[in-house]
């Protein structure tokens, strides 16, 4: 009910309640007044007795507007219901009728959607004949194609989900599939759209009755009242405007309610004010990257997420440092912070965070940093702009940061693509990203980082989305680039073997902290933190003993919203005691554990 927390939502719901109240009780409360003939007051103007005057039989118009609410709303709802049911059936046709018939239905719907809605309404209204029933059918049928299109799209989206495939394999029939799996998962947008359609239907009915195609005397809805009032519009404007205002209010009620439910944003809590800043410290010497007490807090739906909770490390010139950890360990957020890619409302605090001597916490650091920092992301599909050719995207770096001309920058882009071993770079530079394979795109991304003279390359899971065979090429390329340019590397990965292959030193992260820091060659045999050991043991490799079960880490990773006091790994640790559960161990001599090195 988050929609009710916004002014639009409140206004919509209150209006809707009033309108529905009038529809429900109008005829009971004011029915008598609305039919009482007062021959002394024919076509009278507004007065204390008759707020918006009387009609040609002296009946009170205000009461009639209130009484007409029922018919007007009922007709709108009926038409919406017809449109919705018909639309759902048509939209579900590909699922219910099979591929071939479904395609036919979808094609017909697409043709119908192309017709102007009003034209369809008028066409059907003439077909079904004048009167309330005809009008309801006409408006309902005319609304069905748009509904069908929406449902078709939504259903197609749900049908692709694996749970639908699983249900099909389990033998669930088509009708039950629709009822149990599809409808509940598309209900929300359909209901929102229905509310808005109800508002539009209301207007259409008013229009139809106004044209004389809708409700006929002695019944009356708002449109009919408007039509009656129109004759005297210059003498008694309120007689026509009164019902018109009712239509506008009711339409607004439906639309605002729908709008509020449709657009209700996911509420995220605002971060509480920052604690005392960490004491400013100076970057470590001879380091290309240095971070001290780095903290990153992200506003989440259930309170602030402490993604990184005080991480200190440095990367020396030309050094390769790996960061391993599972999802939620804060490794990627650390990478983003180092790359300077986190913006408010995410809060980044640190004693210092310096890359190539530039303080990243100071404004404008990016511009000064220029090309000394290169970043490679996980998903090679989204890291290039699909609308531009690859060469110019690389060239942009040199034009922006190094002031090169268009031609010179493009030549450099071709040269860099060659450097990352992309065959026929002149031709490739003129291609679009979709013409590149995943591995090639990742290499081109590294090539983009090489447009300048990077001193640090931050690579966040650069090989996770790639096939094993391609993974290797990208890792070898990163190693070569480092050898050729002397750049340092910060490699983030969940894959212990990738990190040990490429890096000199490894940081192991758990629940937003570094729990162990050690030379990569020692990771497999000499790790002292129980988490590091478990992480290494849990991954099968080509030498794993086939006769014993794999080592597992019991329990679940820590919820970053609610990090326990003491050591975050304690609930899953075989060595933990009460001391571990109450006092958080500091990182000392490369390991943050009270029981470091003890055998389980």
């Amino acid at each position, binding site marked *: 009910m988050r929609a009710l927390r916004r002014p639009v939502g409140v206004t919509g719901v209150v209006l809707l309640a009033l309108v529905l109240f009038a529809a429900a009780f109008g005829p009971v409360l004011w029915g008598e007044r609305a039919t009482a003939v007062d021959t002394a007051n024919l076509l009278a103007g507004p007065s204390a007795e008759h707020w918006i005057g009387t009609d040609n039989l002296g009946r009170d118009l205000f009461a009639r507007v209130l009484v007409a609410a029922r018919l007007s709303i009922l007709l709108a709802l009926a038409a919406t219901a017809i449109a919705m049911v018909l639309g759902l059936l048509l939209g579900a046709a590909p699922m219910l009728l099979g591929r071939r018939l479904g395609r036919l239905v979808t094609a017909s719907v697409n043709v119908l959607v192309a017709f102007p809605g009003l034209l369809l309404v008028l066409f059907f209204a003439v077909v079904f004949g004048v009167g309330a029933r005809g009008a309801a059918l006409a408006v309902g049928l005319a609304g069905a194609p748009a509904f069908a299109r929406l449902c078709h799209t939504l259903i197609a989206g749900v049908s692709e989900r694996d*749970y639908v*495939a699983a249900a099909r*394999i389990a033998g669930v029939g088509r009708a039950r599939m629709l009822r149990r799996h599809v409808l509940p998962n598309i209900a929300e947008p359909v209901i929102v759209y229905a509310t808005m359609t109800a508002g539009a239907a209301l207007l259409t009915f008013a229009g139809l009755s106004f044209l004389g195609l809708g409700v006929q005397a002695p019944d009356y809805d708002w449109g009919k009242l408007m039509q009656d009032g129109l004759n005297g519009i210059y003498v008694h404007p309120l007689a026509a405007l009164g019902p018109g205002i009712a239509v506008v209010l009711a339409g607004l009620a439906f639309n605002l309610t729908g709008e509020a439910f449709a657009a209700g944003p996911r509420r995220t809590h605002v971060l509480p004010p920052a604690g005392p800043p960490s004491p400013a410290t100076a970057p470590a010497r001879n380091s290309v990257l240095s971070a001290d007490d780095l903290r990153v807090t992200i506003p989440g739906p259930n309170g602030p997420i402490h993604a990184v909770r005080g991480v200190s490390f440095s990367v020396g010139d030309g050094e390769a440092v790996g960061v391993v950890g599972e999802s939620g360990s804060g490794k990627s957020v650390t990478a983003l912070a180092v790359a300077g890619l986190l913006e408010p409302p995410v809060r980044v605090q640190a004693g210092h965070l310096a890359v190539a001597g530039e303080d990243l916490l100071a404004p404008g650091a990016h511009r000064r940093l220029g090309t000394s920092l290169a970043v490679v992301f996980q998903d090679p599909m989204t890291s290039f702009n699909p609308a531009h050719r690859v060469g110019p995207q690389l060239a942009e770096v040199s034009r922006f940061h190094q002031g090169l001309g268009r031609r010179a920058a493009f030549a450099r882009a071709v040269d860099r693509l060659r450097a990352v071993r992309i065959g026929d770079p002149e031709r490739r530079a003129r291609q679009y990203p979709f013409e590149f394979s995943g591995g090639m795109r990742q290499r081109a991304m590294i090539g983009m980082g090489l447009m300048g003279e990077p001193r640090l390359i931050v690579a966040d899971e650069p090989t996770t989305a790639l096939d094993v065979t391609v993974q*290797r090429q990208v890792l070898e390329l990163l190693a070569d680039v480092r050898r050729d340019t002397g750049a340092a590397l910060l490699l983030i990965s969940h894959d212990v073997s990738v990190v040990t292959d490429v890096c000199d030193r490894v940081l192991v992260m758990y629940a937003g902290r570094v729990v162990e820091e050690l030379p990569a060659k020692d990771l497999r045999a000499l790790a002292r933190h129980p988490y590091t050991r478990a992480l290494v043991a849990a991954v099968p490799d080509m030498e794993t003993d086939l006769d014993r079960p*794999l080592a597992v880490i019991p329990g679940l*990773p820590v919820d970053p919203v609610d990090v326990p006091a003491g050591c975050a790994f304690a609930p899953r640790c075989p060595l933990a005691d009460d001391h571990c559960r109450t006092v958080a161990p500091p990182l000392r001599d490369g390991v943050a554990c009270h029981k470091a090195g003890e055998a389980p």
Partner: protein
Amino acid sequence: MSALTFHEVSVRYGAHTVLHEVSLEVPAGRTVGLVGESGCGKSTLARAAVGLAPITSGSILLDGRPVPTRGRRPVQMVFQDPYSSLDPRMTVGESIAEALPGRPSRQDRQSEIARLLTLVHLDPARAADLPGQLSGGQRQRVALARALAARPQVILADEITSALDVSVQGAVLNLIRDMRRDLGLSMLFISHNLAVVRYVADHVAVLHAGRIVEHGPAARVLGDPRHDYTRHLLASAHPLKEHT
């Protein structure tokens, strides 16, 4: 348990051929690992066996008879993405109950759900939870329980651990091995990760560009590969430093 046989199966989408006359047998009670890179047709082969992908020619047989591709399939499948394989609006128990054969009474249903959840090492009290309350590894176990609920002859596991964290992957792999041992399940285990396949599979088949290029006992294929492509795959799976 039964044997699943793919006999010269081809799958074509328009002019694009995904599988070229693939022949492969999953013997009764055995686990066959299917490896290959993305796009080589691994998933298509599995989807064809349950009628989710139409085959152009060839046949898929269960104990010599064509596999039914309507109604409750005797071959069940577990999918890769634990976040898309359970209906977010159905409880764990409802999802599992849906796959149960026949129309069991309410009490039978409850006890069967509890039994299946225990089988995949989950607390039976989890039956009332919605998938949103479970972790990726727990969801994958529920998906496995749902597949088992249908009393399958064969299970197809399509990259079921590749979306999981390593600490959770181990638990799922152990579970797969336990179930083969205790239930004698026949299984086609699809993965791009050779170390994972080596750990769970008796036989390994290597699929490359829609063709099986090598097939044999796991130890032989992974220990003494005969096809160049298998060697290439194995070389990629080993650490860099040993080769350079």
